[in-house]
């Protein structure tokens, strides 16, 4: 049985798709059979971030409607054999996601994979509900600013009341916090919420802190999940996140401003 992970946030533009791509790639590189599904029907992006946009033939909605089978729609990643992408439809809207259809696809995937990563659309409407309904784990992606934190809080409330686990009275979804676009220098200057500030409001298990990094945009443009950029701080932070998700105890990095070198300190004044 696969573990179903939803990457969600409520607010848009916080890094859900970047995180979905990174987590899926990271899990696959650890030898886990992983499939990542784009639930953002009508505004699909995951295929771009994964660099497989030219290979999309059938999509998630085709499978739900029985117009194609899963094997036709799944795209195998060229960089990692264990990773598959199930793209969203760009021509349909979220209503095409039926609960029965999503259930059927997830059940079928569960048999052949270890992890199913669901990239949720922004908002708290139907698309986001479908992405999180069947989840076992949820990674709540949050930026260190008040509006994002409040939206995440709202999403956590929905996770605990509207999911399949909640409706069946089962053990609740395991919720994790991932802080992205974190700028330690601005935090030090008091311009940005700190990890502790966010944790005080959300009080969740912290899966990772990804620093604001130019590498993320570069990776998106190139269609390469940023986790593959081992040189970059964001890539390393995502690698730590995957290890933590798999149960390793990895210390958090990138929480403090970079130490200025001796020379730059000397010539600063």
């Amino acid at each position, binding site marked *: 049985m696969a573990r179903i992970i939803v990457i969600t946030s409520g607010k848009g533009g916080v890094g859900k798709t970047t995180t979905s791509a990174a987590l899926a790639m990271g899990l696959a590189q650890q030898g886990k059979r992983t499939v990542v599904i784009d639930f953002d029907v009508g505004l699909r992006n995951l295929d771009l971030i994964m660099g497989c946009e030219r290979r999309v033939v059938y999509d998630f909605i085709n499978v739900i409607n029985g117009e194609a089978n899963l094997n036709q729609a799944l795209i195998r990643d060229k960089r990692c054999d264990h990773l598959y992408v199930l793209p969203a439809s760009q021509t349909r809207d979220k209503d095409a996601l039926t609960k029965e259809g999503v259930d059927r696809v997830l059940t079928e995937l569960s048999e052949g994979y270890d992890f199913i990563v669901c990239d949720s659309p922004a908002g708290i409407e139907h698309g986001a509900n479908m992405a999180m309904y069947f989840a076992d784990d949820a990674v709540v992606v949050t930026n260190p600013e008040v509006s994002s934190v*409040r939206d995440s*809080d*709202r999403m*956590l*409330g*929905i996770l*605990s*009341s*509207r999911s399949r686990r*909640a*409706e069946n*009275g089962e053990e*609740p979804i395991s919720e994790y916090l991932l802080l992205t676009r974190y700028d330690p220098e601005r935090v030090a200057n008091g311009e940005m919420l700190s990890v502790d500030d966010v944790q*005080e*409001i959300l*009080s969740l298990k912290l899966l990772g802190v990804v620093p604001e990094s130019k590498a993320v945009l570069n990776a998106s443009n190139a269609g390469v999940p940023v986790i593959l950029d081992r040189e970059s701080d964001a890539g390393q932070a995502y690698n730590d996140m995957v290890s933590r998700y798999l149960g390793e105890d990895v210390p958090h990095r990138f929480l403090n401003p970079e130490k200025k070198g001796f020379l730059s300190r000397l010539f600063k004044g």
Partner: protein
Amino acid sequence: MAVNSSSQNNDADGSRSFELKAASFTLPIIRLMDNNVEAVAARLGKKVEKAPHFFRNTPVVIDLSGLAGSGAGGADLPLLVGLLRGYGMIPFGVRGGSKEQHAAAEALELAVLRDSYVKRDKTKEAEGAEPEDSAPSEQAPQPRASQGQAQRANQGFLLVTRPVRSGQRVYAAGGDLSITAAVSSGAELMADGNIHVYGPLRGRALAGMSGNLEARIFCQDLQAELVSIAGHYRVSENIPSEMRGVPVQIFLDQKVLRIEKL
């Protein structure tokens, strides 16, 4: 004190000509087990004879759930309602029963009450409607619905051990509400009795929902957006800064809302 006067002023200048509140009542229910109105009439007649005053002007609810499977529109509602009125009762609603029966009830201007013991499409209500939108009878099951982890020790008393998140609403009908975790801003706590919060209270807390002036709010760390007792409220802006972040109790003193350090 500035706030107290503001809420009082509202009353005085008539900008608050009414209040919408939720209340719960205990009502007699007539549970039909038989389609035969004649048989019902005969038995009911005997009952009423024994205690005629007890039934005079008594509002009653007609429970149709015992007639399940007896066919559409099985209960002859107009006859039955006439019968009850004849005995001095005031039938005002039905519960249970089929769609046809509900249509018949609506035609008679009877309310169709939801059955609180039937599991319903809970999430929509828990997340959606404003308190003003839902009838009191609909609110009661909400705590169970919106809080999967809410532990209901017994009727009317509600204990919640998980954080109450932005957008969630918890209502303890007929009793006290205790929360042992944080209450986020944008969350709403409601209770007919007292409210106790042992984590930071950042959302709204409304005690004494059914008009109980004795209800109080107790909290360890007051950062609330709004506190209210029996409709007398105060918003965050008007909570003195020395009361924020410390353990306090909030209560009504001569209909004036007071916040006091514990």
